[in-house]
């Protein structure tokens, strides 16, 4: 399967070909970026679970241990470290310092297969209709349970493509027409998410937007349920637990739409 990722250090976007991960396991591959390696962990669905970097070791004269894969001797630094990488041709040996012990893990090195990465569909959509307008459309669909949106004809194709990739937007019909905006709709959460997503590789950007929407729906349902059960204090604690102001605002906005006003007032008036 194919994976697209961005190196957290040098920001290089790469497309790599990897073996499928068995069900229940997380597989790792490494990319050699000279002074650091990028470690990518993915699951059986091809979803990236984590991407992190490890510094590649220079020559050291400290304690030596053997690479479990090829038997090469590894000289550790004399100074403290959390983890350090040693590139051995087709694999990389990562030495982890855990407590007062060392552990060596080996990961297969893969090479980039494609230099040009397909353009991020969220970025394309934002380039055509603007971040504010796209944030508005997504917010309106979710906050008002809209099934049809009217947008300028030059954006219909790209928005249909984008909505098709997001679980909760897939059912929305995109029709050419004039985009009229209701200024009471709160767009801050999705404006923030889209601003971050346009700078990421497409798969990561889509996942970020998709997960934000799913999380917002899940959390708003929880908040509304708490309110409807008259658990005002618990609802307030739940809401206050969100450090993210934009998510909190969106939840309040949704609560106002879906819960009785008297309960929402109780939630907010203390």
């Amino acid at each position: 399967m194919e994976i697209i990722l961005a190196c957290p250090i040098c920001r290089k976007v790469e497309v790599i070909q990897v073996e499928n991960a068995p069900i229940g396991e997380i597989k790792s591959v490494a990319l050699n970026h000279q002074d650091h390696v990028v470690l990518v962990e993915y699951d059986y669905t091809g979803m990236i679970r984590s991407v992190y970097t490890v510094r590649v070791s220079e020559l050291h004269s400290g304690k030596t241990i053997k690479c479990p894969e090829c038997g090469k001797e590894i000289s550790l630094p004399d100074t403290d470290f959390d983890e350090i990488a040693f590139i051995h041709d087709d694999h990389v040996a990562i030495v982890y310092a855990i407590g007062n012990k060392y552990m060596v893990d080996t990961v297969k090195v893969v090479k980039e297969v494609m230099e040009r990465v397909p353009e991020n569909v969220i970025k394309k959509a934002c380039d055509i209709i603007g971040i504010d307008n796209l944030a508005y459309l997504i917010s309106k669909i979710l906050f008002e349970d809209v099934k049809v949106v009217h947008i300028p004809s030059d954006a219909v194709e790209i928005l249909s493509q984008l909505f098709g990739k997001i679980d909760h937007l897939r059912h929305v019909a995109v029709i050419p027409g004039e985009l009229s905006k209701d200024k009471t709709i709160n767009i801050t959460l999705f404006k923030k998410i889209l601003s971050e997503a346009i700078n990421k590789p497409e798969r990561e950007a889509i996942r970020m937007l998709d997960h934000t929407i799913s999380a917002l729906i899940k959390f708003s349902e929880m908040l509304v349920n708490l309110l409807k059960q008259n658990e005002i204090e618990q609802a307030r604690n739940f809401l206050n637990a969100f450090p993210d102001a934009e998510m909190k605002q969106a939840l309040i906005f949704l609560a106002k739409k879906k819960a009785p006003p008297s309960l929402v007032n109780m939630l907010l008036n203390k």
Partner: protein
Amino acid sequence: MKTFKVAFVGDSGVGKTSLIKAFLGEDVKSVRSTIGIDFFSIVKDSYNITVWDFAGQQWFREVLINMLQGAALVVMVFDLSRPKTLQNLIKYWAPQVKKFCGDRTVVIVVGNKKDIKKIDDDVIISAIDEIKKNINIKLYLQTSALLGENVSKLFDTIFELVKVTQI
């Protein structure tokens, strides 16, 4: 009925959701990455625990981590086949548990995926000694959600500790 909040934390893909689903008798093979937090309610002997299953992915961690507050018990899970996930218990999760739950909250450390274990026991013991300096670990357990190994023991212990501590 008394209700207690039990939080499952740890890196993405260590098997937090699989452990919970294995205990509930659900299919663990189709488990996917958790979005935000999932909630499970489990009742035993007039005790009700609400399991807060936190997403391990970094983006969600940053948004949701302070929801650890109020947990009566925390289960910190790592993957016995991935040393980085054990190191992250020391470097990231234990400090977060201490910050949001305090150093007296009862903690269980679980090494999951025993069926594909790669990390030596002496490394694990050393890590747990390090974590113990900051938080209150009551038990370390190796499990396999896939094979159902030690899963019941984990949840029996959770209920026992909740009862004993009466937090």
